[in-house]
């Protein structure tokens, strides 16, 4: 039980969080994908607490954690995951009660708008909606428009933004100084926060390693610790800097500009994270049981079972993926269009479509893993320890669960981690084709899709495109670097594995 302490703490924390949410004066909304995300989180927590208790399972992970690049990637991924998780707790806030009904009607009415914790955190960004495009850190709109002067005359000029740089009395004169001042502030705040954090963390680590603080810090600075703490600290520092920059510059200005209808692009980019993560992870979660079960069955039983399973995956594989997705999503669209009464809110409808997208992406992408597992099982079943198990009279089910499954898990793991980045990238492409997530859902694909048309404008509106591509790039890069390390550690062929 001691080994699972972390898991229990985690579960208690989750329960407390859920409890708090339910006692708040809001109506919790658990979307389908939210529920699956929770399941995934609990599964992952259970998995890692199990791994921690098994030295032979832990060894390759420790190997992953010794690689500086992988650890840096992990820090970046964690930041994305935190944002994504905050964005996965949904609720409907209560509407302010109408004065006249006070006293008689105690029932609280809830807004049809579904918010997440992230929305609450980002309230200042969410509510500062301008009229149209404005470039990053701008104080005025991007294009001239007719406006009424105080004296009643009409002038075509760049209008002041309602929120961006509104605190400046005289933007022309104060702008540069204000930006510089705020940048320096952000830097200083980040530096102080970083120093405090690193110091506290190091005190804790040094105590655990039974070392003097000074010695430990020297080791960290030289990069001589078992875990690459130097890299972790640098990454955490960069993240802190980003947070302070957002606070200092992102609140009074639009750090990444605004889009066509005046939404803050930074807010959109951050909201897109959940969409990307959900597609990258839930898709795999959906396909995994099929791929694992069918792949192992085909390899283990052979004969007609193998033939049937091979037939199924060859057939599915032979349909071009995009077309299958398109066909399925078109059908779902049709269904949704013809049954508009099924969903209470727009968010719920968009969520169901997201779930379907994950499902259908899963159906198109399980075949590769299934084939890999079939091949590996064919090899495994000839191995002596499986033969020995048969010689004990073990049943097929037990042979599969005790002997085959644990020995193909590394392949599953590598496939899952490798698939993730491909799926995140696929979302953007599918949204472009028009079979991606719901147009009302904020996603990088939709951001790119709507910004793409503005490339023809003179001068070019580039920020929303670059913001989406940039956020996507860092997530995918981190995932790729991390998956590289995972593959090296788990693939016995690379020779650095535990085998």
């Amino acid at each position, binding site marked *: 039980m001691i080994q699972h302490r972390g898991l229990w703490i985690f579960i208690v924390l989750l329960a407390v969080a859920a409890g708090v949410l339910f006692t708040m004066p809001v109506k919790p909304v658990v979307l389908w994908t939210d529920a699956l995300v929770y399941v995934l989180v609990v599964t992952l927590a259970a998995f890692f607490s199990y791994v921690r208790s098994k*030295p*032979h*399972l832990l060894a390759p992970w420790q190997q992953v954690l010794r690689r500086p690049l992988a650890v840096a990637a992990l820090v970046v991924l964690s930041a994305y995951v935190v944002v994504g998780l905050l964005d996965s707790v949904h609720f409907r806030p209560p509407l302010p009660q109408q004065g006249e009904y006070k006293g008689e009607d105690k029932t609280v009415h809830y807004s049809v708008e579904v918010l997440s914790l992230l929305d609450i955190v980002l309230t200042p960004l969410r509510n500062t909606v301008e009229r149209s495009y404005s470039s990053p850190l701008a104080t005025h709109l991007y294009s001239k428009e007719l406006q009424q002067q105080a004296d009643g005359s009409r002038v075509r000029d760049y209008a002041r933004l309602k929120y961006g740089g509104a605190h400046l009395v005289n933007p022309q004169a104060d702008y540069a100084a204000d930006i510089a001042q705020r940048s320096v502030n952000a830097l200083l705040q980040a530096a102080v926060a970083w120093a405090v954090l690193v110091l506290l963390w190091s005190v804790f680590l040094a105590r655990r390693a039974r070392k003097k603080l000074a010695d430990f810090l020297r080791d960290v600075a030289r990069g001589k610790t078992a875990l690459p703490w130097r890299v972790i600290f640098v990454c955490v520092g960069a993240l802190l800097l980003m947070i302070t920059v957002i606070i200092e510059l992102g609140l009074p200005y639009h750090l990444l500009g605004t889009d066509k209808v005046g939404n803050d692009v930074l807010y959109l980019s951050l909201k897109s994270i959940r969409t990307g993560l959900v597609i990258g992870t839930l898709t795999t979660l959906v396909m995994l049981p099929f791929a694992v079960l069918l792949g192992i069955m085909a390899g283990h039983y052979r004969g007609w079972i193998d033939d049937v399973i091979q037939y199924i995956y060859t057939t599915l594989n032979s349909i071009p993926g995009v077309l299958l997705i398109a066909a399925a999503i078109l059908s779902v669209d049709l269904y949704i269009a013809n049954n508009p009464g099924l969903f209470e809110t727009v968010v719920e409808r968009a969520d169901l479509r997201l779930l379907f997208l994950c499902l259908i992406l899963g159906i198109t992408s399980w075949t590769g893993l299934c084939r890999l597992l079939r091949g590996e099982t064919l090899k495994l079943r000839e*191995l*002596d*320890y499986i*033969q*020995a*198990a*048969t*010689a*004990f*009279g*073990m049943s097929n089910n*037990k042979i599969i669960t*005790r*002997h085959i499954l*644990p*020995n193909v898990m590394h392949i599953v793991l590598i496939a899952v981690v490798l698939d993730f980045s491909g799926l995140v990238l696929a979302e953007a492409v599918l949204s472009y084709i028009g079979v991606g997530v719901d147009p009302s859902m904020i996603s990088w694909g939709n951001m790119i899709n709507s910004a793409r048309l503005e490339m023809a404008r003179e001068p070019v509106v580039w920020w929303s495109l670059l913001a989406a591509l940039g956020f996507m790039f860092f997530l995918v890069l981190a995932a790729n670097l991390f998956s590289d390390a995972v593959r090296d550690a788990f693939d016995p062929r690379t020779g*650095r594995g*535990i*085998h």
Partner: protein
Amino acid sequence: MTSPLLQIESLQTCFATVGGTVRAVDGISLEIQKGQTFALLGESGCGKSMTALSIMRLVPEPAGRITEGSVRLNGDDLLQLPEVAMRHVRGKRIAMIFQEPMTSLNPVLTIGDQIGESVRQQRGAQAVRARVLELLEAVGIPDPAQRYHEYPHQLSGGMKQRVMIAIALAGEPDLLIADEPTTALDVTIQAQVLDLMRQLQKKTGMAILLITHDLGVVSEMADRVAVMYAGQIVEEADRATFFAKPQHPYSKKLFASLPDIKKRGQRLAIIPGHVPSLASEFSGCRFVDRCDDAIAVCRSQSPKWIAAATSGGVRCFKLDAAYREQFPIVEKQVTIPEHTVEPSTQGNKTLLTVTGLKVHFPIYKGLLRRVVNHVKAVDDISLSIPEGHTLALVGESGCGKTTAGKSILQLVKPTAGTVKFSGAEFTALSSAQLRRHRSDIQIIFQDPFSSMNPRMMVVDIIEEGMITQGIGGNAPARAMRVDRLLEQVGLSPDIKRRYPHEFSGGQRQRICIARALAVEPKLIICDEPTSALDVSVQAQILNLLKDLQDELGLAYLFITHDLSVVEYLAHEVAVMYLGRIVEQGTVQEVMENPLHPYTKALLAAVPVIEKSAEGVERSIISVQGEMPSPINPPSGCHFHPRCIQAMPECKTSYPAAHINGETHMTKCFLYE
């Protein structure tokens, strides 16, 4: 004395691994004269292959590095040469052949191409083909003109090794390094290849550095011998001296641990423990933990090289004048003559009776996937094993002996025949009924690395069978039984919470034996259980198997290709050739008076350890050619194309069983 061809001086090669720096070769010095065969003898992991690669400067970089020493070929220090100049040494002045002929040839280039590549470097394009054909001829490959255009996969293992030799010969090297050249080959093929090497050496006058773990091969081939242990040479001498009177305790133990017929009924001497990790720092002698004679100084100081009077020397304090007196004068007995009991032959019930067992794998062909032919892996074999007896099933690779073992266990469904085990007819049982009988017969495999699930702890591995078969009672009772089993196979119960990868090959094989014993079997099928192990470890396992037989009255079906193990362990022997048993009888009958020409050939092909200088130059080739494919076995007697005594009727019909004496059966027309 002329200057040596190759002179290695304190060579050191290191490897960077996750577990730290491994000094695979740690200060080796040796000299090889022109035309000499120098054998480097050692167990796996002692650094002998790495020595060879270091000479060629082929150590895989960047993990491996030659850190010290010199390698002089006719006076030129190879380690100082630039890489470009080194290329002119490789293949021309020093050539090398490797252990695995299967993987050492490029699968997508023709034989002619691959040999031609080394020829081309000295000759014009015109002469290349002629020279390649000449080389193929020289290494005894029939039909060179046709083979020229063939790919490696079309050749058998022995033929591939001949091609490797042809490649090596192409540059007319002064020195041929042969790294375990025959280890992957069958004993009859080994004899042919060794003989070829000797013939070629006579013709070309090249020196051979022969790297091997096999004392028999050394005895057949070598002029000088150096014994390597844990990265160092511990003893060097000329062959006669070495085989007559080995000096180092390790060398002596190697001889004592070899099984043979003279040691029947005795325990084999064992070298306890295993080779130390080369990543560790050594303060004393590297053999000290396994040495019976060790004294205090062996632990505290590294022994120096003590040169012998004539040539060679030993790295042992026993021969150091300063310490010699401290050793006990009477040497401890090398073999412990602790007799184990021969089983009483009378009144034993027959445990297993196999009659007419056949395993045919269909070959499908054509549009409708019709069965056009069969691979007759096992083709009508019959045998029986009494309680407490050991039947050895002997044969070369591909003869069907492993399939026979598995089909007795019903791991492979037999095509025909009956398998009767203490009253139950296995072939007629449903899989549910069969499950209840599973505990009676168990199996131990050849490869100790693939025979255990790497994700399970030792205790789970051993308990698995008990749980499945419902043996051993409740959980606490089972736990106690696991402890007892581990003790029984000579392991400490403390290890039960560890994982297979933490153990050495010998220890793993012990765990496998414990796993088999857990379900209280009456018969264990041992499928080459020692052939992946070093000689010293093999002795430990053979002793254990013998003890268990005495203690528990187990019967063994011992599947092996190693005749010395058969002589030592078996009561009855069955010799298999191409799916059929060609000779069967008690071990005395078959080993001392072999009747079938194939059995004779097998026995003759085993390299003999000659303890004197004479009698080496015997021709060791016992049989020509190789075993044909079981898809299209030769008509008549399967052995006739290779048999020197073949008669006309051998080509037309398969000989019937002929009983000679009481129990000695053979299938050969010579005795009809």
